[in-house]
């Protein structure tokens, strides 16, 4: 037993060889923040170019590389690893397990990520430039007309897919096998539930993405014609395969965010989550529906009317379980003893802005009107409302909520609230005007635009700089907390917090739950 109680190893080897879920979670979180800054920098280049009409700062080819890398880095480098980091830190502590089920694989699934993104970023300095075909890399742009660096891009996607699959297998194996005695499925915290379902989605669709890039690789280098009409293939096939992965992918991004919000809103409402069971069923329904709606991303590709109708109605159906969730969160707050600490502010911001993004999603789901919105800034506004205000806001909430438990120190509340309000204003200033320019016909992914869009674009750019700057404040607040924050010693950092992670000492020791906790059979989950 004695050997098990040692603390972390010293120096760099601690991080290289660690199999501790908390260490790995920490590395995931820092890595994803670094990627968030990198992807944010690409976004700043985009917004700087669009500050005024006409060509200002960068060449169109470089602009295309920026939009492509911004999307790829944010989706695969920032948002997904950040939630994997959160899962590593929290799932074992929430279900009363000593660690993840497969600690060595856990180490691998993290450590193959940084070299992969280094490789992807290095394409910027290659001859012909970085991939410039958009994060959706439609063939033939990404095959026949791709820069030579596309092969490095394909390899990166393969490796990060492998990392995601290993991470999800680990999460499923942990949740299915390592719950403390008495922790039945319907007693798990909702964050664990949403991650379990997310992990199943990842195992199902990351191989499809790998298949799509493998077909690209074969078309480019081995003379096949999956996506080339000349050899009997069809470029439209690419879009079907990509979105068969791509639509579940958007729920992979948002479901863990739903889980975070479902943990935090009850804590600051001092009430149990309203409708726990319906939350679980709604999450599962969303996951199922995500597999049968992919073609709503490609209404304009020339589908039969019956197909358009099917995908339109199936897409609208998703509003039902999503609505259940939104109403449950609102009802949880109803008549609660509310306080508005920074995590709660970010959750309420999430709730308001994600709902707006949901409504614009419904507008886009209507096939006949989508022909007007397709590939316009309206789409850009829509998915930033669900990705940024959905995933990034909830991730910020999660960091503020659990940071005191992780490092045993309290962040600066005033600075946290300032971060929230600057983010909230900056975000809306950036993306709300994009609804208008999109409806008026401004296409996405173009470095120049017609004069009538100038004012709204300038507002967007100013908002983006404000939002970007607010993240520096966030970084400063987190570092200041770790270095010199006010120590907290209560196990339960927040008065209303519920769950096993709040029963361990603060800061969370290196090893927790080496003997599983007893779960009160009558205990109602938070």
């Amino acid at each position: 037993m004695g050997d098990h109680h040692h603390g972390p190893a010293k120096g760099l080897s601690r991080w290289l060889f660690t199999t501790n879920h908390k260490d790995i979670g920490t590395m995931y979180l820092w890595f994803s923040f670094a990627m968030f800054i990198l992807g944010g920098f690409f976004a700043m280049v985009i917004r700087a170019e669009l500050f005024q009409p006409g060509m200002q700062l960068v060449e169109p080819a470089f602009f295309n590389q920026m939009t492509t890398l911004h999307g790829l880095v944010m989706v695969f480098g920032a948002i997904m690893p950040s939630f994997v980091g959160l899962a590593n830190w929290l799932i074992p502590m929430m279900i009363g397990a000593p660690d993840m089920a497969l600690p060595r694989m856990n180490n691998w699934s993290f450590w193959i990520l940084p070299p992969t993104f280094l490789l992807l970023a290095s394409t910027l300095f290659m001859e012909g430039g970085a991939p410039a075909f958009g994060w959706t890399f439609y063939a033939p742009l990404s095959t026949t007309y791709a820069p030579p660096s596309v092969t490095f891009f394909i390899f990166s996607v393969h490796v990060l897919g492998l990392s995601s699959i290993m991470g999800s297998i680990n999460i499923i194996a942990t949740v299915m096998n390592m719950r403390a005695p008495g922790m039945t499925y319907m007693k798990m915290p909702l964050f664990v539930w949403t991650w379990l379902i997310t992990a199943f989605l990842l195992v199902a669709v990351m191989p499809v993405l790998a298949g799509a890039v493998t077909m690209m690789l074969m078309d480019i280098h081995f003379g096949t014609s999956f996506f080339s009409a000349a050899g009997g293939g069809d470029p439209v096939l690419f879009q079907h395969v990509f979105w068969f992965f791509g639509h579940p992918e958007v729920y992979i991004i948002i479901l863990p965010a739903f889980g975070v919000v479902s943990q935090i809103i009850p804590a600051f409402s001092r009430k149990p989550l309203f409708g726990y069971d319906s939350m679980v069923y709604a999450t599962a329904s969303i996951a199922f529906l995500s597999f049968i709606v992919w073609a709503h991303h490609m209404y304009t590709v020339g589908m039969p009317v019956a197909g358009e109708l099917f995908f339109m109605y199936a897409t609208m159906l998703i509003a039902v379980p999503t609505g259940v969730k939104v109403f449950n969160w609102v009802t949880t707050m109803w008549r609660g003893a509310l306080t508005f600490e920074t995590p709660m502010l970010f959750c309420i911001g999430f709730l308001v802005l994600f709902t707006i993004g949901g409504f614009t999603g419904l507008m886009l789901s209507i096939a006949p009107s989508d022909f007007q919105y397709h590939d316009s800034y309206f789409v850009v506004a829509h998915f930033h409302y669900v990705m940024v205000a959905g995933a990034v806001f909830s991730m910020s909430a999660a960091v503020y909520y659990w940071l005191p438990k992780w490092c045993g120190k309290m962040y600066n509340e005033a600075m946290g609230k300032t971060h929230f309000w600057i983010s909230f204003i900056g975000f809306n200033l950036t993306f709300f005007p994009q609804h208008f320019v999109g409806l008026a016909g401004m296409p996405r992914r173009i470095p120049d635009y017609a004069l009538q869009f100038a004012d709204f674009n300038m507002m967007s750019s100013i908002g983006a700089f404000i939002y970007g700057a607010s993240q520096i404040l966030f970084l400063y607040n987190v570092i200041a907390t770790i270095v010199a924050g006010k120590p907290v010693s209560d196990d339960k950092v927040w008065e209303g917090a519920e769950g096993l992670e709040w029963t361990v000492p603060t800061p969370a020791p290196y090893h927790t739950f080496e003997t599983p906790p007893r779960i009160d059979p009558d205990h109602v989950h938070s």
Partner: protein
Amino acid sequence: MIRVSANPAIDTVIKLVTVAVAMFAFVFVVMVPLYNVLCDALGINGKTSGQAYTAVQAGVDESREVTVQFVATNNEGMPWEFGPSTTAMKVHPGAVNDTVFHARNPLPRAMVAQAIPSVSPARAAEYFHKTECFCFNQQPLDGESAAEMPLQFIVDQDLPRDIRTITLSYTIFDVTDMASGAVAAR
């Protein structure tokens, strides 16, 4: 059942790895063929059959005429001169019709081309039968030479009556690199 491993998580891992591998295979074994089958069956994208049609039509519907238009396009970077001998024909459903497309390779080297057909309106694709078509095969041409490429087709008698014009479009692709082995064999 005796567990091979002491760690029960290993069973879960084996199942999940199987799912991941199966999903990878699913893309190639199911999605790609299914897409092609569905497009052929439903005539999506104006795809016409890649095989010669064996005539089973009895009689010719003299009561109506359908205009068939021919369009030819060169894919980017394809230097051939390529076009139909007539741009439009009036035909009776059920009748067998012949026409030719001209192609000339202006470059001094031998090349191989592939023509890909598409029918508009897409609804008409399944009623447009080709009994003989240059598009069924790749077309090799020596440098600075020309050829006539035949097309024989039947418009199905079941063609919906509201369709009075069918446009048959060919895009010609340079497949010399892909077919280099095949050229050597000829």
